[in-house]
């Protein structure tokens, strides 16, 4: 993923009409037909009837049965985290570090298995699972392992920072393993213990990670993984057994959590939605920018909180950018995510596919011009959606304001830098932004004036365990990654 955005455009020959032979990754990973809950270091059977099925979104076939944790099991998870926390925080920092290093190593060593499982359960292309999700998850554990014995340098002036205690962590379905790593690694490094709930549609890699935690002999209860839908989530949020809640997901659910937790004096990290602008100035390296735009909105089928879903192009290069974008997008290969050549896999669930489709209809109804792109026949089954962009989009249009969480780009133009910046900032969100120009002073001036937590200059969708990630405004608060991410898991 990293570095991809700066590669020059090389597709000069018309490859759109080429036919490719399938290059399938062997789906040889064993998936257990049923999964329990990971509580206190042991696997706990679901209550009778309290199970759900997780599907492969590319085929709509069931992959496995997972548990729906009930209130008593949620309590058991928090109790075991509480018991474990007393010892975990007193474990010598360097010993804590060794556990995290072990986890990082085992993720690397089981990378192929995890990548295949991630693609089967989430639908993301195997190329992305293999080259981005799994290696970055390992990097997060490796990076944070090294922090365990250096926490006195984490927050200036705080020489003896303490763990917060027991953390409730709720993660989304777009980067299932990576989000688990983002949440667990800093929490554990700082001496906290966790109850993690993966998303209902993508629980398998977090459960596989729990197996790795058993394998590396992480003390029981330090991490508990419970699965389930909104009922389980609500039981977690309303449970008195945690000191901190970290949530990644929609702004709507984030606000509900804030409301539910208002009477409590707890620590919170909210990583919520976005409607991120990607600004292309006329003096930008256009071919590089095209790659960045593509990465910005079609990476992971656009199901990325920081997706560059609003493209703002300087008027004088609008036609050139749209023409090149169209050409590039028509080369995006849509199809089986297990094929190593696939660029765009299925949407994660039927619910989300229908949501994306409803926005496509709204876009057309509100008068924007829709272009449906992508190369290849869509498979007959699975939740596929072709990458799509809209031109002639008014800034007030629904598709320019609301987070779609799908492969849908709204293209707009601007005349002056002031107009670009005011339009870019004209949103309640503030997660990320992209700026494309060859002029150094302009890039940093624009980056300074954009109200967003992460700004990519001549690039997009770059992530690293050492780089803090998180939003301004209604995109949330708190950071994940790097030194700044540790603040969220230390009492100070």
């Amino acid at each position: 993923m990293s570095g991809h955005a700066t590669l020059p455009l090389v597709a000069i020959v018309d490859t759109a009409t080429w036919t490719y032979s399938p290059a399938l990754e062997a789906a040889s990973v064993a998936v257990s037909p049923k999964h329990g809950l990971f509580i206190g270091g042991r696997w706990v059977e679901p209550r009778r009837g309290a199970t759900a099925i997780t599907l492969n979104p590319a085929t709509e076939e069931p992959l496995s049965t997972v548990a729906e944790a009930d209130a008593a099991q949620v309590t058991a998870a928090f109790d075991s985290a509480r018991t474990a926390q007393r010892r975990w925080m007193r474990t010598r920092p360097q010993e804590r570090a060794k556990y995290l290093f072990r986890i990082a190593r085992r993720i690397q060593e089981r990378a192929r298995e995890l990548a295949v499982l991630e693609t089967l359960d989430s639908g993301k292309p195997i190329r992305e699972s293999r080259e981005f999700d799994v290696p970055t998850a390992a990097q997060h554990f490796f990076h944070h392992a090294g922090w365990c014995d250096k926490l006195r340098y984490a927050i200036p002036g705080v020489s003896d920072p303490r763990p917060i205690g027991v953390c409730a962590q709720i993660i989304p379905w777009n980067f299932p393993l990576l989000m688990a790593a983002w949440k667990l690694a800093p929490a554990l490094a700082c001496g906290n213990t966790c109850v993690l709930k993966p998303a209902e549609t993508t629980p398998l890699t977090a459960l596989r990670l729990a197996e790795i935690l058993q394998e590396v002999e992480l003390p029981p209860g330090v991490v508990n993984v419970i699965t389930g839908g909104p009922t389980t989530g609500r039981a977690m949020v309303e449970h008195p057994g945690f000191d901190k809640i970290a949530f990644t997901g929609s702004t709507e659910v984030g606000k509900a959590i804030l409301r539910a937790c208002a009477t409590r004096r707890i620590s919170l990290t909210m990583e919520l939605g976005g409607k991120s602008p990607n600004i292309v100035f006329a003096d930008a390296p256009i071919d590089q920018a095209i790659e960045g735009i593509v990465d910005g909105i079609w990476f992971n089928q656009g199901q990325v909180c920081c997706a560059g879903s609003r493209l703002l192009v300087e008027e004088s290069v609008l036609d050139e950018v749209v023409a090149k974008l169209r050409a590039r997008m028509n080369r995006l290969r849509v199809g089986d995510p297990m094929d190593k050549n696939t660029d765009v896999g299925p949407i994660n669930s039927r619910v989300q596919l229908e949501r994306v489709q409803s926005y496509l209809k709204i876009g057309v109804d509100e008068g924007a011009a829709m272009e449906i792109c992508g190369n290849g026949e869509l498979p007959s089954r699975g939740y596929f959606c072709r990458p799509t962009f809209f031109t002639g989009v008014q800034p007030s249009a629904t598709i320019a304001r609301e987070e779609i969480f799908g492969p849908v780009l709204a293209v707009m133009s601007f005349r002056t830098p002031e107009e670009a910046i005011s339009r870019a900032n004209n949103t309640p969100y503030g997660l990320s932004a992209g700026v494309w120009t060859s002029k150094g002073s302009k890039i940093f001036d624009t980056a300074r004036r954009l109200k967003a937590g992460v700004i990519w200059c001549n690039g997009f969708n770059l992530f690293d365990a050492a780089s803090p990630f998180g939003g301004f405004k209604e995109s949330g608060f708190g950071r994940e990654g790097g030194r700044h991410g540790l603040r969220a898991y230390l009492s100070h």
Partner: protein
Amino acid sequence: MPRLPVIKTHKLFIGGAFPRTESGRSRELKDGRGRTIAHLCRASRKDLRQAVEVAHAAQPGWERATPYLRGQVLHRLAEMLEGRRDELSDSLRATSTRSAASARDEVIASIDRLISMAGWTDKLAMVIGGQNPVAGPYYNFTTPEPVGVIVVIDASNAPLLGLVSMIAPAIAAGNAVIAIPSESHPLAALLLAESVPTSDLPAGVFNLLTGEHAELLPQVATHRDISGVLAAVKEPAAAGLRAGAAENLKRVRIVDPGSDFESDEPWSGASAFDGLVDFKTIWHPAAT
């Protein structure tokens, strides 16, 4: 015949001017013996809205001012207060039975806190920002940026030092502030507001509303153009403010009203800026 004293009506401070509340409401402020010593405006929802509007307008310019300039302006504010030390001490004692020495100590600590914060403006990014060594050919760095418009609410035991300790880092970091001072001991805060126009702080960067906390706090919580709240209040007022975060993801930081504002940590340290800055991370390619 003894001289009849002139009783002052303290007005609000919004956008560099001293308007009365648009609501026309006021209340009496009494001393320890129940004598009326002043009148106060009782700010309304509309006054709050007006203050938010002017604070919003003033904030970007203040954020863009150089850290050197912001530091000098805060120092200037301390200079203005230094000249009114006795008056400030008297104002703290007017509504309480505390000793002259204790009031004087609070005034001195407040002025010294401003001096400390004046020195933070051009060091904050150095100390709490940083460069991030990412695994790729990128120059990647993180800087603190002001959150926007911050409401500071003081119901602490230190009506001047508490308020100053909270507003100073907010202003130093480049935010615009609306202060709601102690309900029972607001006089020192009002004197502070009277000093601001002579301190070179641009109009609208600091605003002050006196009024009833029970009336104003729910309005602060639900106002969508307020970006952050720093409040020394008790429960359930604190819970009401935290619920307000659900409106627009306000950064809400609650401080124990019994806090020891005299201690230098955290109020003179980098932790004073918690909740008053957001961190921005910028990636730039470092390869051709």
